[in-house]
């Protein structure tokens, strides 16, 4: 009981001191800022204001140019996603990939096209494309067991494995592994940036 009374007393003393110090500071600052008529800053206040405006303008211009440069950097992905998506949609209907059933890709056709013996087939397949967009086609089953990679061979070997900027679009497909088994999967078109794009 005695301990709790003394604690309360110390606490109230501390708060009173704090309030007194705050009041004193307020009165002092009121005197020094609002009632100071010496006019130390007066002749240069317009210069300071102008400097602030110029700094503001420079910051605004810097932010603007940064935003534009950010847009320029990502413009490849923004612009070419549409092309990648169009290609992905088109390739799902490609006769070279199709099984006998409509809307289904054939695993045996993909084996033939992506294998080492499928060079002529690949050349025929990519004959309809201009070659302006180096791209590869990746088809994989949903469970990840099977994967086919078809690249156009219009660029040097290993080029598409580099660190070029790229954009990819995927569409869901159904892959016929054999006449008795069809599995879901995805067809992905990965488009690479070239120096002229």
């Amino acid at each position: 009981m005695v301990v709790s009374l003394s604690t309360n007393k110390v606490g109230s003393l501390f708060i009173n001191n704090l309030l007194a110090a705050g009041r004193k500071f307020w009165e002092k600052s009121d005197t020094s800022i609002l009632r100071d008529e010496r006019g130390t800053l007066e002749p240069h206040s317009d210069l300071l204001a102008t400097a602030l405006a110029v700094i503001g303008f420079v910051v605004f211009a810097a932010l603007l140019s940064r935003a534009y440069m950010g847009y320029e950097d990502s413009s490849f992905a923004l612009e070419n996603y549409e092309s990648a998506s169009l290609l992905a949609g088109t390739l799902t209907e490609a006769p070279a990939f199709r099984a006998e059933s409509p809307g289904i890709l054939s695993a045996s056709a993909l084996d033939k096209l992506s294998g080492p013996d499928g060079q002529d087939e690949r050349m025929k397949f990519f004959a309809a494309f201009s070659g302006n967009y180096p791209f590869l086609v990746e088809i994989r089953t949903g469970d990840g067991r099977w994967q086919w990679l078809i690249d156009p061979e219009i660029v040097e070997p290993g080029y598409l494995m580099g660190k070029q900027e790229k954009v990819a679009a995927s569409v869901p497909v159904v892959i016929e592994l054999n006449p008795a088994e069809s599995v879901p999967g995805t067809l992905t078109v990965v488009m690479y940036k070239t120096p002229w794009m």
Partner: protein
Amino acid sequence: MVKDFLGDDSAWADFLISKAALILASVILFAALFQLAAGFKGLEAQEQLDFLARDFKTVVDQAGAESFQEGYKVGNQVGNQEELSFRFDENEVFLASPFGENIEVCVSGEYVHLKAKYDEKSFSAVRPFAFRVLPFNESVLREKLNTKFGAKGSEGSPLTADLLEIKAFLQVSGTEEAVLNAGESISIKKELIYVKDSEGVSAFGCVLVYQ
């Protein structure tokens, strides 16, 4: 007089210098703002030209995608090879652009190149095509193939040359730019070129762009 000048403590020099600095800074600030606004105008015009080039490229690529889907259908009934008509002056961005009809449209086998002038500045936008494009009509294509390979590349007269050679020939044929009028209709037509090899007859599509 010098004594008067040095003894003058009315601070008129301070006042004049600070006001002169203020006026100078304001002039520079406003000039920079107007320059920025003028830069945005140019940027907007460039964006509009880019949009038109992208729009044209998308239409040509869509035609190419259709021809691609119909390729390889040898022996089956190939769908009607319809001719699309593209008009720049039906596009709202074209009508709203500051260039008017002074846009020059150059199409080659590789790209579409739009050139325009506005406010004494030159603007240009280039977009490459995803599919194989040739900047001439069907009769010119068949004539060129006939002259080079002795066959027209049609279903009844397929080409027998090596596919690589045919591709190289088409690439060279498409390098020359065709200048089209943006105020008139542009025809976009998908066309199949038939090739006969040891495995039989196959076909690949290309898009013809002409006026």
